[in-house]
């Protein structure tokens, strides 16, 4: 018998089978079922079952992050109805407005463990792979089915192994690796597949950085992305090791549908131009493009590590006149740490605006919506036409350091000019 990939092992365990192989369709039992504002839709569909309670309220996580604090009276009403239902169902893992972004909280609150199956009513649920879990996005109605039955069908994906070697150059971050991968693989390059990250470079990269890689895998069409839990994880979450959660990794003779070798030392700071994530190239290609707004935040790049990188760029400088620098920490914890470390103060002193923890303007709902013809450089994950507001607005994607450097220059800028320290 050939060896098994980590994805095959996790789904075998989640479907009560001794063994399972890519291509098989299994009925899987999620360990965590997460939804955000769309819990409103989940509950609407769930109510059609006329069940008193979901199958297991302890496995459900609800986070208000997409339009938080509420942007309209309708959102406020949806938030209110969600608060009522989490109380009624006894859902303990409820995070109200201001606590942060769902994918960040799943990690930070140590809700997700290695080897678990996580389903989330959000496409970036792949982020959970940073701790060796199988995270995958589903829709609200499907989540209602999980609430009712506790299981869902999943086809076990083939795995593409990305083996990374080398060290990152100065001012290059996990986001640049992700944009590089997007430019190589395209928006459906990992369609329906698991992207597994491996190689000696993993020792270099924090849980935050792994979250970026797994998060952006969604932009390649991946069903999930996994960086198997290792010593970095053990240091990050010592309380978890050896307890619940089964850390697992792929067998040496596991079968992969493709293998990609990547020397990360060859990757420069990257920028992705409008309106496709895969239209990414070295920052030189886009340098000089005038910007109106610079956004640092989102489930991709709103963590402490990201705010620190931005603050090292911004320290002692001012945001260019006419440019709005908007920073949304990924969680209350991130904001609190950024305040303790003086990082938030640097951002504010440079002329930046801090938003409450949450998704911020990433999805174009509020807090920095773009007007006609405006240009934004953003640390978020999608630069689709019309995503952040007007359809004639343009979104460029980059790392937080590149976004900060661009905010100072008022145009897309090379972070290597501004980041004078090694991070």
């Amino acid at each position, binding site marked *: 018998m050939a060896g098994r990939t980590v994805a095959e092992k996790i789904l075998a365990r989640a479907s009560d089978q001794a063994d399972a192989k890519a291509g098989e369709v299994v009925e899987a039992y999620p360990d965590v079922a997460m939804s955000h504002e*769309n819990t409103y839709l989940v509950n609407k569909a769930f109510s059609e079952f006329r069940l008193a309670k979901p199958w297991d309220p302890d496995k459900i996580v609800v986070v208000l992050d997409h339009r938080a604090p509420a942007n309209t009276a309708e959102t406020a009403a949806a938030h209110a109805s969600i608060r009522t239902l989490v109380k009624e169902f006894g859902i303990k893992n409820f995070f109200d407005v201001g606590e942060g972004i769902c994918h960040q909280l799943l990690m930070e609150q140590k809700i997700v463990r290695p080897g678990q199956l996580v389903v989330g009513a959000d496409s970036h649920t792949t982020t959970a792979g940073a701790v060796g879990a199988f995270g995958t996005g589903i829709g609200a*109605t499907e989540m209602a089915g999980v609430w009712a039955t506790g299981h869902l069908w999943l086809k076990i994906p083939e795995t593409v192994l990305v083996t990374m070697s080398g060290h990152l150059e100065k001012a290059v971050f996990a986001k640049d690796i992700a944009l590089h991968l997007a430019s190589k693989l395209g928006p459906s390059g990992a369609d329906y597949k698991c992207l597994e990250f491996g190689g000696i470079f993993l020792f270099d990269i924090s849980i935050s950085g792994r979250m970026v890689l797994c998060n952006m895998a969604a932009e390649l069409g991946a069903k999930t992305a996994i960086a198997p839990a290792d010593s970095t994880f053990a240091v990050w979450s010592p309380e978890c090791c050896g307890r619940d959660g089964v850390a697992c990794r792929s067998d040496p003779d596991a079968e992969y549908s493709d293998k990609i070798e990547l020397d990360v030392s060859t990757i420069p700071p990257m920028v992705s131009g409008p309106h496709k994530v895969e239209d990414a190239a070295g920052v030189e290609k886009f340098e000089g493009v005038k910007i109106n707004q610079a956004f640092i935040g989102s489930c991709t790049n709103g963590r402490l590590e990201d705010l620190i990188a931005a603050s090292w760029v911004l320290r002692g400088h001012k945001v260019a006149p006419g440019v709005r620098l908007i920073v949304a920490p990924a969680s209350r914890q991130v904001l609190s740490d950024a305040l303790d470390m003086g990082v938030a103060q640097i951002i504010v002193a440079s002329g930046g605006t801090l938003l409450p923890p949450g998704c911020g303007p990433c999805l174009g709902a509020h807090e920095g919506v773009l007007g006609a013809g405006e240009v934004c450089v953003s640390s978020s994950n999608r630069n689709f036409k019309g995503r952040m507001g007007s359809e004639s607005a343009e979104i460029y994607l980059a790392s937080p350091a590149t976004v900060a450097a661009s905010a100072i220059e008022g145009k897309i800028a090379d972070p290597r000019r501004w980041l004078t320290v090694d991070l």
Partner: protein
Amino acid sequence: MISEGRVWKFGDDVNTDLIIPGRYLSSYEPAHLARHAMEGANKDFASKVSRGDIIVAGRNFGCGSSREQAVVALKHAGVGAVLARSFARIYYRNSINLGLPAYVSEDACTVLNDGIVATIDSRTGRISSKDGKKLGQFNPPPEHLRAIIEAGGLIPHLQTIMRPSPRDRP
């Protein structure tokens, strides 16, 4: 299940922000969503689409967000089925789960021109012209999905079978 309608043609990578932008998602009202269906890809679509019309697209239809309002917007605008070279996985599941048939077809994109009237048969996978001439083929979905489509979506499907969980069986 046989459906007939006018073909609306789109290209590759039609993402969920083109199908229904995030700025319209504060309201969950299907009629509101339908008024903005496909706004980013074709401004005239929402006002001109008729009940039963068919969307034909290239690769990776529905990529991006998990928002199932993308499916709700199309369904309530009147779209009867979507045929594409390939679908983004969450969109595909959402479409089946909400009872909007989604079929993978290489042929559709090649043989169906924008504006013509076509007939599709979900059982046989046959694509025909209005006068019954066979134009092409799509792969009928696998058994476990056909059951959901025929029930009209995931909720009615689960309601009819409401299988006891395999873990609960004696």
